[in-house]
Structure formats: C-alpha cells, structure tokens
C-alpha cells in the first residue's frame, strides 16, 4: 500500500504565518500512523502567490488535498478521514 504523504509548507509566507507551530505534527503523525503516513517539510507549495491567498496560510498538503489556515487539529482531522478511506 502506498503511504499517505503530508507536506508542511515552510515557504516564507507559511513560515511567517505560523507554520512552525505545526512542528509537533512531525512527532504526532508517526506515533499515530507509523509508516502508513510520511510527513515532511516542503518548499512553497505554490498556494500563497495570488493576491489575498496569503491570508489563508499556512498550508499543508495531504496527498493532493490542501489544508489552508492549517492547525494541528485540522490536519489530523483531514488525515484521519484519508486513512479511513484507504
């Protein structure tokens, strides 16, 4: 089975808008899902560029789905649904 990929954006916009407060995910996700899910930082995910879009940062990408204004809870929620679908 392919593992699910979580990318936490550490581009400038997401970093400044608070993505470092998502860092706990690097510990929580492996604890919850082992190697079923990989989680890593990413360069700008390209979501922040158009005008007004900065206000929805930080972004996290879970496979091909984007989570905007990401919080630890939000990311875990989306991830849980994904894992259950598989």
């Amino acid at each position, binding site marked *: 089975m392919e593992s699910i990929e979580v990318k936490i954006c*550490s*581009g*400038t*916009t997401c*970093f*400044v*808008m*608070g993505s*470092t*407060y998502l*860092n706990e995910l690097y510990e929580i996700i492996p604890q919850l899902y082992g190697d079923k899910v990989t989680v890593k930082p990413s*360069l*700008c995910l390209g979501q*922040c*560029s158009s*005008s*007004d879009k*900065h*206000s929805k940062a930080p972004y996290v990408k879970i496979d091909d789905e984007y989570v905007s*204004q990401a919080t630890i809870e939000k990311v875990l929620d989306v991830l849980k649904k994904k894992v259950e679908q598989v």
Partner: protein
Amino acid sequence: MKNNSQSIFIKKDILIRLVEAFFSDDFIKNTASIPFKMRPKDAEVPYRCCIYKEREIIKDRIIADLGFAVEDLNESEKLEDFALLALNREKNIDNPLTVIEAACKGCVPSRVYVTDLCQGCVARACEKTCKFGAITIEGGRSYIDGSKCKNCGMCIQACPYNAIVRLIVPCEQACPIGAISKDENGTAVIDFEKCIFCGKCVAACPFGAVNEKSQIIDVLKNIKNGKKVIAMFAPAIAGQFPGSIYQLKAAMIKAGFYDVFEVALGADITSKNEALEFEERMKNNKPFMTTSCCAGYNSLVKKHLPEIKEFVSETKTPLFYTAEIVKEKYPDSITVFISPCVAKRIEVAENDNIDFVLNADELGAIFIGRKIEILSMEDSSFEKESSKQGRNYGVTGGVVQAVSCLLPDNLNVKPCMIDGINKDNIKKLKKYAQDKNCPEGNLIEVMCCEDGCIGGNSTISNPQTAKRLINKLLSESKDLK
C-alpha cells in the same frame, strides 16, 4: 499558543496588505480600502457583532500599523488622512504601544463572579465572609453587588462548592509591574510612567487589542526614496525565518536594504567588555554583576529597581556597538534594527545611531508583500562573521556563556539566569540588591522574556524551532575565544 493566536494572524494579514498598498500605484486609496477587502459586503462576521465593528477594528489596527496611537481617535478621521500623514513625517518616536478600545471591549474587567455551580446552600459562607456586605442571596443563589465588591476574593475561598471564581484580565495578569489595567469604561489603559515595554500584554491579549505602533511605512519610504537603508538584525532573528542567515541577508537586500549586519557582531564586543568589567568588579570584591543587554530589564531597573543599578554591568548592548560600526562605515545611512520585541524600541529611541525598528513580523510582512522567497535566495556573505557565542545571545543562557568563556580560569565565576521578568523574579532581584548578595551565583543573566529573545513578543517562530535553527547556525560558526 503563544504568538500564534488568531489575533496575531490578523495583525500579520493587515501588515502584508499595507506593504502591498505601499508598493501599489495608489497607497492612500488602497490603504483605505483594506478593511473592505478583508470584510467585503456579505462576508461572514467571524468574531464581532457586526461587519461594521470588524471593519472599525481593522481600521484601528491599520492606524497603529501606520504608526499612530489609536486612543482618543476622532471617529470622523479617515484612514486616508493617516496614510498621508505617515507618508509625510520625518521621524516616528513616541510611546511604542497603543490600545485598540473597540477590540479591548470584548473582555470584561477583572471581577469576582458567581458561577452556575452555586447551590444556594444554607451555610452561606460567602455572605458571611464578605466584609463589604456585597453578597446577598437572591432567588436561591448568591449575588454580588458590583458597586460594593472590592475584589478581595475572600468569598472565593469560603465557598464549599468552588462556585465563585475570579475572572481575570489577561493583560493585567501578564504585566509584571501592574502598568496596565482596565479603566471604569472597561478599556485597558497603559500607565507609560510605569511601563517597561516588555510586550507581555501584547502577546497576552486574546483580542489583540494592544498593538505596537509600527515604523514600517517610515522604513519603506526611505527604501523607496533610494536612501541607504541598513538592516541590523538581532541574534534571535536567525531563528525567525526559513533558510540560513546568508539567505536571509540576500532576501533583505532584495527587499531594498542597502546592506545587512548581524547584531551578533556587536554581541562579540559586549562579551569582551563585559568579561573585563566582571573581572574588575570581582577584584574589587563586588558580590555579583548582572548583564545589561536586555532592554526590558534596563527599563525595569530605571523605573522600578534603582537599588540594583550599582550591580548592573555598564557595558553597552550588542545593538549599540553594531550601530557604531554601521554608522562608521556608512555615515549617511538610515539604520534599522530588526527586533524580536517591543522593548528595544525604547533603546532605539534613545540612540542617535539608530533610526528605526522593524519587528520580525513586520520584516516577514515585507517579504510576503514583495513576494520574496527566502529559501530560493543564493547565499550572501557577511564582511565579518560573528562568533558562535555572539549568535547565541538570543537564547537564555547565551550571554553568560559568552562572557564566561572569556574569563581567566582562576576567576571563580558562577553564572546563573533570571529567565523572564515576572513578579517573583522581580522580588528575587530586589532581594539580591538589598542583601548585596546573590546566593545563586555572581554573574546573573537577566532576560525579560522566557527562553530569552527567541521568546520575545514579536517573534514568529515557535521557540523550539528558533532554537533548532540557531543551533544549526552555531554548529557552523567559529569560537569567540
């Protein structure tokens, strides 16, 4: 979560829009339209009672970001007028904090409150214990008459059901010296005679009502006008952005700064001078010495702890020495300090070698507004590399480590730390001064913020992340010795 609440998010969002407006074809008009862009017609109203209130608060925040006080505003004054005034002023020095009344109103003044847990019991311990006759039993429940209550809290202790609680006001709770409190209208007022500008209220307010008055427009204006604007970034700033400090420098140059210096460079001078001073003091049998680089602590000493003054190092701050170096190299430059906290604004206002302050948020907003991606920048080197110890000044323990490593082996140095200025630590410092003795050590590092400058009120990163980024830099840096 510290420095990462929704209110801080909105503050950043507004700053970014302000930067975008500044570089647009019509700064004034586009600034005035920010509240309407953020809360367009028919938009949902996420926080307050109505869209007008939300826009009003956004307007007030913009006024603070333009560098003005929001207190005593006349409602008829338009954003356009403030934008124009900001564009045309030369200097921007004044108390660096301002309270947004409309945002502050969301929170009730400190008071004692009877919760639903009240059983209307027979004992009526609350009623009996109240010395002011403020408690009566009405409808089978305890009732507090606000006009008689003196907030003493005796009833809280007396109630066998823990049904009475004190509602706290986060800013009042956070302020270590009681300089902020709600007035009779329920608006927080800062007593600037007492305030040490530690920024704890800024970070504590859940409504984001306490704002720094920004100098961002002043800095951008000088950049736009082609002035030689030089950035000097605090050691803690190395932990506030993605990438290396060499990429950070390149990003700042791209944003229009003419040159960029590490304040860690000045920290190396501070370490050397402070080590010499410590040695001298020990020779003269002085009991202890405290560091002097934290602006919040320096304000505390000046306003509330004069008795400890004789034990405070007279060595200048890293920023002081850095600004000297910069002004010598570029006498006609405009200098900007990139800061992790509000307290440094006071130090800067008193130093002629430094013109403006930008905090980490504000620099971040410039990067975003100008679409500068730090991680895609090529490295840009510094003329002189700072030491490992200098680069660690922004982390608790970093200053005493730097000073200690320069002291001769035979000198009996015992470093210790005051990690964060709060009521307890102020008491401790007072006692050291009175007793002329500090049982914990003889070289005391005092940091106003917990974790050091990386815990400053204007930081971006989670302190753990900041520490990790700084440690990476340290592993590549040379020793001071």
